């Protein structure tokens, strides 16, 4: 580009700005706009440009071309109809043949509209001239779009300029929401196909195309419904690929929601474009109804479609079992998805029951302990342990293996919750941040599976350990005895007794080694391992699952996995935390028995009175007495405890945000 050109352009632009500022006073869209030169009214222009005669002009290269004509009737009906020709064509200063152009540049939609909007803002007319604002928004979107990129060989210098799609003279795009708009809407494919002929060919035979062009269905999708009107970006790049699901979803709302419930949709919601999006399965222009043999998702073609991504290279190859997976399954259509409906009802019932019972239990317990302790300053004046020479001694509740196991469980379950809930609640603001920090969904998935393997590993080691322990005891192991974690009648009696005590209708039960809520905590893990672990394994090895089970099992298993994980997470950070750290008797947190392994005699006697009495009577108490933990050990345990509690509560908050947040558009 020669060096002078930028300077000329700058001058011309400045001149245009000055002239347009002078020419366009507020409300200058009136018919009596200033005329730039003598005898330059519309009638003069139309005497040549109305097209009554076929006129030709010679351009700079000496070639003849037909004179540009406009349809004046259409023009006055359009949005620019109130304007005179020379209001825009400020470069025309005479009615000579040919024109001797003035120094002002040719009309530029962008500059004019941006200037007009600035004036409207200054004059505080933005509400009255709201459509000007829309134009400016469209211009901003266009500037970022692919159409605005350079194409030196084209007259406009860009891929597509305003007048490639809009006939400026008769511009009359009806505003959104009007009935005229929906009619205009169907003319869009003709406009885009001026350049995109191939896409039109494909579109016309598609279900959208047939609806739009043959059936004149006003709701049918046309080019701009997917590609947007002005923010048209390269379709192979991520921003568009993510946008398209929202565009499809703006009409196909139910399918959009059900898609977002699947792993494909969750990753998409997190802002990653590598999982299946609408067009990956349904095609982009060549979309056919599912029962059409041409459709990519017709049962005959579906496996090939799945194998486009599930090709065995990076992820396992899709097998026939994948086909009965419901990519748009929902929980409220018993006719179409009975298994998912049943699974959902069961899980919701389970959640209601567990939380209903245990939250009531916790609330009442909090109330009852408050009555006993709150507002009453208890001061231990007599150090009973000193009296019997047992200062610096505590009762051993948990051995080292238990404590390490519990700690690893706590850490792995928290990791599982963080990585899992970020996918479960992909639509929250926090989820993409967490996934990003973890290094993307695939890394988060790997971390998730490693933590799950740790948990499962500890669980199985425990099973082996317990089996050996019971085997050693042989006939002496009392399955329903006080040292066993197996529930017995006393537990049910205690549970009932506790509720009576809550409401002042009975004495507080006296507990042996394992209280009923501790037993519940223990067995809940078995349930969790079976449900979450089992479903998780099925999801980790989808090809094996698909070779044994029908595809709908994936829908059920995904639902169950997520719901049970939610149950576990909320239960742990509410009920479990309350039982062990936040009830009035245990305040202030943390209770460190699970880290130090020991409890003071006083606390032991209060919490497990029956065991205490039993051990004193049999003289076995001494066997359980160990040195009190050292100061560093106690301090370290408190710090560890508080850290874990804090992490747990943070996780609870982000889960709550997800639960109460709901889908964001």
């Amino acid at each position: 580009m020669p060096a002078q050109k930028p300077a000329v352009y700058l001058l011309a632009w400045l001149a245009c700005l000055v002239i347009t500022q002078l020419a366009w006073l507020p409300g200058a869209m009136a018919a009596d706009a200033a005329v730039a030169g003598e005898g330059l009214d519309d009638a003069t222009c139309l005497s040549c440009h109305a097209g009554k005669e076929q006129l030709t002009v010679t351009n700079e290269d000496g070639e003849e071309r037909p004179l540009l004509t406009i349809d004046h009737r259409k023009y006055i009906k359009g949005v620019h109809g109130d304007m005179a020709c020379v209001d825009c064509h400020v470069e025309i200063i005479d009615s000579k043949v040919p024109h001797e152009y003035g120094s002002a540049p040719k009309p530029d939609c962008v500059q004019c509209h941006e200037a007009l909007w600035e004036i409207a803002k200054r004059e505080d007319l933005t509400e009255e001239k709201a459509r000007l604002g829309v134009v400016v928004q469209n211009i901003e979107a266009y500037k970022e779009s692919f159409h605005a990129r350079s194409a030196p060989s084209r007259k406009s210098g860009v891929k597509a300029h305003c007048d490639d799609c809009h006939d400026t003279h008769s511009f009359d795009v009806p505003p959104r929401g009007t009935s005229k708009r929906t009619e205009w809407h169907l003319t869009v494919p003709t406009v885009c196909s001026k350049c995109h002929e191939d896409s039109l060919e494909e579109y016309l035979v598609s279900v959208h195309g047939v609806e739009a062009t043959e059936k004149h269905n006003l709701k049918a999708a046309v080019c701009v419904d997917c590609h947007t009107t002005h923010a048209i970006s390269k379709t192979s790049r991520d921003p568009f690929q993510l946008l398209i699901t929202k565009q499809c979803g703006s009409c196909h709302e139910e399918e959009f929601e059900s898609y977002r419930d699947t792993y494909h949709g969750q990753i998409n919601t997190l802002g990653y474009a590598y999982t299946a999006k609408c067009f990956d399965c349904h095609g982009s222009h060549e979309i056919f109804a599912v029962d059409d043999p041409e459709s990519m998702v017709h049962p005959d073609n579906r496996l090939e479609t799945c194998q486009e991504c599930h090709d065995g290279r990076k992820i396992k190859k899709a097998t026939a079992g994948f086909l009965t997976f419901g990519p748009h399954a929902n929980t409220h259509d018993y006719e179409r998805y009975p298994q998912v409906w049943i699974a959902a009802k069961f899980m919701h019932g389970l959640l209601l029951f567990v939380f209903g019972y245990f939250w009531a239990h916790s609330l009442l317990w909090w109330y009852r302990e408050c009555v006993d302790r709150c507002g009453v300053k208890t001061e231990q004046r007599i150090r009973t342990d000193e009296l019997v020479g047992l200062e610096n001694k505590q009762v051993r509740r948990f051995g080292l293996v238990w404590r390490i196991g519990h700690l690893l469980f706590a850490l792995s379950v928290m990791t599982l919750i963080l990585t899992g809930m970020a996918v479960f609640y992909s639509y929250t603001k926090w989820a993409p941040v967490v996934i990003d920090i973890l290094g993307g969904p695939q890394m988060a998935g790997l971390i998730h599976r490693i933590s799950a393997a740790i948990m499962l590993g500890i669980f199985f080691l425990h099973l082996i350990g317990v089996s050996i322990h019971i085997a050693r005891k042989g006939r002496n192991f009392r399955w329903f005895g006080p040292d066993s974690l197996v529930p017995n009648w006393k537990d049910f009696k205690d549970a009932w007794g506790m509720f009576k005590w809550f409401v002042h209708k009975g004495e507080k039960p006296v507990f042996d080694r394992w209280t009923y809520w501790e037993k519940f905590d223990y067995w809940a893990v078995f349930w969790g391992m079976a449900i979450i672990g089992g479903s998780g394994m099925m999801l980790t090895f989808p090809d094996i699952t698909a070779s044994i089970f029908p595809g709908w099992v994936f829908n059920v298993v995904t639902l169950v996995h997520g719901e049970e994980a939610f149950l576990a997470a909320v239960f742990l950070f509410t009920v479990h935390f309350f039982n062990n750290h936040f009830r009035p008797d245990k305040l202030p947190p943390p209770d460190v028995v699970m880290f130090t392994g020991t409890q003071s005699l006083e606390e032991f006697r209060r919490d497990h009175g029956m065991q205490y009495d039993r051990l004193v009577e049999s003289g076995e108490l001494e066997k359980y007495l160990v040195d009190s933990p050292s100061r560093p050990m106690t301090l370290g345990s408190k710090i560890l405890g508080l850290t874990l509690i804090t992490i747990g509560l943070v996780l609870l908050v982000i889960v709550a945000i997800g639960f109460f947040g709901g889908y964001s558009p």
Partner: protein
Amino acid sequence: MKIHGSKYLTSLCSGLLLIASGAQSALAADVQELFEPCSVCHGKEGASTESNMPIIGGMSAPYLTDAMLAYKEKDWPCHEIEIPSGPDKGKKTDMCTIADDLSEKEIEQISEYLAAKPFVRATQEFDAGLAAKGEQVHDASCKKCHDEGGSLPDDDSGILAGQWMPYIKQSFEDFGSGDRPMPKKMKPKFNKLEDADKEALIHYYASVK
């Protein structure tokens, strides 16, 4: 001794400016240092003089980043090459290994650096007749995304005009075998091309002015 207020402010500002410009040039020097090993194969500022190594200076940053990330993920084929010069001359390596050693941030930095450089077209001999045919094939099948003879970096489709012919040939082979994935719109168009069409295209791109 009381330091005069304005003098203190001036020295503070100039100090900060010095640090900022130092940091700026340090960053610029950083990228140049980062690109140094790449220039052994891809030439100074990406203007490769080896016919099997693509000229990458002047391609758009998004395209270059996508390419490097594709190599990182081994989505593009990792052809083994021999380093042509420098201290590691003769050693074998491949783009996947190289991309794996770079962080995403470094890849972005290199891409921005190369995008600001001019695309230096290769001087190559081509057959005029084949080039003319190639232009027709290009206009019919490729122009939509590889505008102006494949010379516009802003198309984010790489640069074909003036690219090394052997490199384009290798890329065509990779596309054809499925080793290198094609954008969805490219696949049907490319797969319809005959071998003669592809040969013509290669000559056309060498001929684009």
